């Protein structure tokens, strides 16, 4: 299983980061790359609950492949969503289930963002993503 192109790019960028400031800047840049959601999409149906910030996650399916879109009102969280989507977007369902996302954030040096005391909601996003992926077509 080779890394998607966007994921390779994220890995290279974050691996080159020196210190928290660069990492924060990079996260914000990645956050800007997220395709915006329309007002009609930023609704309760797509809300990921369990985070203190507002987060929306939408899954669209084409055949066996899943295409995710996401956004948040918090900028750094948008960056975290962007690097998450870079890893999983467009994968076939079967492959998605086997991706070790904790390891992915580890590789990016962002593992602390997944710690259980975090209320940023990234864990809730992963949970929601698995639910959406597991739904029958």
């Amino acid at each position, binding site marked *: 299983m080779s890394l998607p192109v966007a994921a390779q790019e994220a890995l290279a960028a974050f691996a080159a980061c020196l210190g928290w400031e660069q*990492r924060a800047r990079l996260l914000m840049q990645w956050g800007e790359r997220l395709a915006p959601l329309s007002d009609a999409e930023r609704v309760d149906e797509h809300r990921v609950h369990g985070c*203190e*910030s507002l987060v929306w996650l939408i899954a669209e399916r084409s055949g066996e492949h899943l295409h995710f879109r996401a956004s948040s009102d*918090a*900028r750094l969280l948008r960056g975290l969503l962007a690097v998450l989507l870079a890893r999983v977007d467009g994968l076939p369902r079967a492959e998605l289930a086997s991706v070790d996302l904790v390891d992915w954030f580890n590789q990016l040096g962002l593992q602390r963002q997944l710690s259980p005391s975090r209320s940023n909601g990234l864990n809730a996003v992963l949970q929601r993503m698995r639910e959406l992926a597991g739904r029958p077509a």
Partner: protein
Amino acid sequence: MSLISPWRADFPGILALAAEGQTYLDSAATAQKPQAVLDALLGYLASGVANVHRAQHLPGERATRAFEATRSQAAQWLNAARAEEIIFTRGTTESLNLLAYGLEHLLQPGEQIVISALEHHANLLPWQQLAKRRGLELVILPLDDAGSIDLQQAARLIGTRTRLLAVSQLSNVLGRWQPLDELLALARTQGALTVVDGAQGAVHGRHDLQALGCDFYVCSSHKLYGPDGVGLLYGRREALGQLQHWQFGGEMVLDADYHEARFRPAPLGFEAGTPAVSAVIALGAALNWLNGLDHAAVARHEATLHAELLAGLQARDGVRLLGQPQLALASFCVDGVHNADLAHLLSEQGIAVRAGHHCAMPLMKGLGLSGAIRVSLGLYNDGEDLQRFFSALDNALELLR
């Protein structure tokens, strides 16, 4: 010249965190413990434990004596009339739940429970749920702009149907002393029971509960530099006599048959099961340590730190304080900056502050905020802690703007 805390060296936890590059400014959530508490915990555990109030053997007698000594110390600390007016619970939350169940039988449908708009969930949800169970009306006292309960409105809202008033002494979000004397007087005029949530207030200054004249007062050991897992519930003797038992089990019973039982009065009747013996004993050590301090010096130090905190926040563009905090803490948000982003970047820089709704969602919604950052101080914090916080805040804002 930076503000120095003469008590900082007594706290291994704050020193260890500092050595790790962490600046701890979240003492309103839980406080670091002085060496005396660590010594007491280890001393008790290492010299042979036993259960309390049960055994005739020497270890049991020793544990019970130490456990009960804390009850006396707590009574003294709060100036209760007698040690039997102190019940040990697991914390403020449990104390308030105990009251909401123990007083339920006194409340009739249509009667009112009065709380305020600034209550922590612990002093909101037990009463909200009690109101639902009994068909009561939950009345919310509004705040003024500074963040104090509005007394004029309170005088209008506390009326003949009010059977219970439950309010915080010091807000965990707004950092203001609430006008308890006036509020308690209003409640007493109506013959209502009074409950004071002292979770934050108990940590700052000494309080004379007989002078305050509330029926019940609750607080937590872990914020008071003691171990977690222990709370205090003070009740005036007459008020305690009205409580119904709520948890049943070992050692709270006088006499039990298969189908009937009779229970002990307070305090033991409300301490079913094995209590947190080691933590209670170590709370005694915390109170003992606190008693040995120069209280005027502590108050001065806390006031100076707080003034520096406020001045620094107010000096920064776009920083908006929540209310007008008087001591211990300050909550704020920054125009155009999401509090989650700010919290993220502060924690990246080793600043341990609290972000979010601070267990007071209705208050935050009322203020029109999704969250805020709270900086809270302990007596071990010093001027350098604040400088590190401000420099991290400046870095974060520069990045985010």
